[in-house]
């Protein structure tokens, strides 16, 4: 069943590969970003809900 569907679907390996690459990219970039942020910026944004009144 698995093979049947995938064979009939044509070459869809690129889909899985793209998804995997994207998934890892998002994690790597995202994690890299959050770890390199300056503390004063993070503090400022995280206080937004408290400073809105």
């Amino acid at each position, binding site marked *: 069943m698995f093979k049947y*569907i995938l064979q*009939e679907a044509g070459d869809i390996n690129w889909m899985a590969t793209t998804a995997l690459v994207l998934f890892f990219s*998002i994690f790597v970039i995202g994690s890299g970003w959050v770890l390199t942020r300056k503390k004063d910026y993070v503090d400022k944004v995280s206080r937004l*809900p408290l400073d809105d009144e």
Partner: protein
Amino acid sequence: MTQVEQFHYDNKIVKKFAYATMLWGIVGMLVGLIIALQLVFPSLNFDLPFLTFSRLRPLHTNAVIFAFVGNGIFMGVYYSLQRLMKARMFSDLLSNLHFWGWQLIIVSAAATLPFGFTTSGEYAELVWPIDIAITLVWVIFGINMFGTILKRREEHLYVAVWFYIATWVTVAVLHIVRNLELPTSGLHSYGVFSGVQEALVQWWYAHNAVAFFLTTPYLGLMYYFMPKAANRPVYSYRLSIVHFWALIFIYIWAGPHHLLYTSLPDWAQSLGMVFSLMLIAPSWGGMINGLLTLRGAWDRVRQDPILKFMVVAVTAYGMSTFEGPMMSIKSFNAVTHYTDWTIAHVHVGALGWNGMLTFGILYWLLPRIFNTKLYSTNLANVHFWLATLGIIFYAVPLYWGGVTQFLMWREFTPDGFLVYPNFLETVTQIVPMYALRVLGGVIYLTGVILGVYNLLKTTGSAKCVDNEFAEAPAFPQHHVETGVKKHWHSWIERRPMQMLVGSLVLILIGGMVELFPMWWIDDNVPKIASVKPYTPLELQGRDIYVREGCVGCHSQMIRPFRFETERYGDYSKSGEFIYDRPFLWGSKRTGPDLAREGTGKLKKSDSWHYNHMIDPTSISPGSIMPAYPWLAEDDLDISTTAAKINALRKLGTPYDAGYEQIANEDLAVQAQRIAKTLKAEGVDQAGVEKKEIVAMIAYLQRLGVDITLQAQAEK
């Protein structure tokens, strides 16, 4: 120097949504209580169609999800968005159109579902005109939200707003794709997808309704209201960002975990399982972030009922998001699927996560916009304990009952026979658990009623500050470097439209990889030569089966386990369902599977079905199935046959051209045949061939027949 601008927050719209949340919360849970009682006392439908379990169950789920939680979302979003953006909502007119439009949709749902107007897709039951109304109101909400974001005075978009944006865009995509349908009349339609394809679309939709209606908007609310209530910023803003992107990316893939061991292709099942397991990481990241926001403030949790509600809500979120991935593991899913375990699981989420967070927010928010104090903190504490106990009394019996029933289903004698071949035995065994569940529901609902009383007393003695004065510096037109280094995320944070597109791309990737292989291929499921379209009478019978909501308790999907094939017959193949619009695999077996009901050892006589429908206990003493006596009283409406055949042919069912002209003649012949058999078997009802029951019998007798013919031919 930036100019300081003065403006007013619109609290009136928040108040309206808050009242609607409370009203529909009580209504939705009350309907839940009624149907829970009916599982213990089936006669409580009083033989009235619109009071019957199978018709009320979708009303309960829709009311709780879209009416109670839906209004809760809008209440929280309209309050927090204005303050986070330092701007009044974009348009008061749109706010009100949104509010009244949504209430109208809810009332329309209540006016259609109990009367059998349903498409039967879980959480997508509403008929096509209401689907269109939902789309319009959702667009109004979107314009209002993005309009507010665009005219904001605050440069940065706080993480809660990202969750709102992702919610809006994803729900729009889900709703449209799931409800692609071809109307046959003003209130009836057939879906574009059928069988396995529809199943995949359905659970991609329904799983993500949980993800993007019950979860992401509430996470946004958590990230806003929990810091508010605790009066300290979220534990880790960094973590909240990883939480957001990881969660929306992974969630969209996980739908097929609802279809494990079904006829869905293995690759799709594995995809769903793997992504479901990965979901633990972002979900628990969010839960930990929520709970640790209270670091250093745990002493206040002892005194403040609002924080208590929020802590239990986030804990329930953590429990159900641990349980969900576990239930997605195939071997464990074999136990939980079709049993009451699933019902317990969703109620930990709905009562715990959504219910507790909603009331935590209500207790925090209403006194503020009314500029007063909560009427009674003690009463709120009582509500908290009733809610917590209610959840436990609700969930534990159902976990117990679910496992018990599964163990009974799969128990064999040493000689290899089923110990409990009669499905009913496995039901009567757990009816006491259903009774305990009712108790849990009563306790929880009592708490809710006390809570609503408390909140109404709070607001009754004060006046709502409809327009709350505020001031803030104008939006900086030219960004002034503040010494903080710029980076890509602060770029996207200031650009809501780019954020919208980013979220859309991310969820579309998951959706496309999951759905496209199934759509692309014309020949996506192996055809089975003996599987033929339904006859007109069977088709009408099938639509009655859909109307009555039989799928709420009866699956039509036999999994490839010996204990299932022994009980029901050969396991289900994907090719069996190509003409099934809608697909009726079901997700819960309160009654037995019916996929092979018309064949093999499960086949019953026509009169058996007749008597069983009119009074199930006359055939199966102790049965908790409701009686459907009106099927033998109401005439079958055959005026719809031609339109149905036409619509199905357009969608690909191979009815001959012009068949709709003569379909009712075939229908009458088959009905006469069944009436004759009934008479021969002792059912003496004059004119029975014109009644709905005959169509229902025709459909039930067809189930599983085609595939059996194939097996015989192969032999």
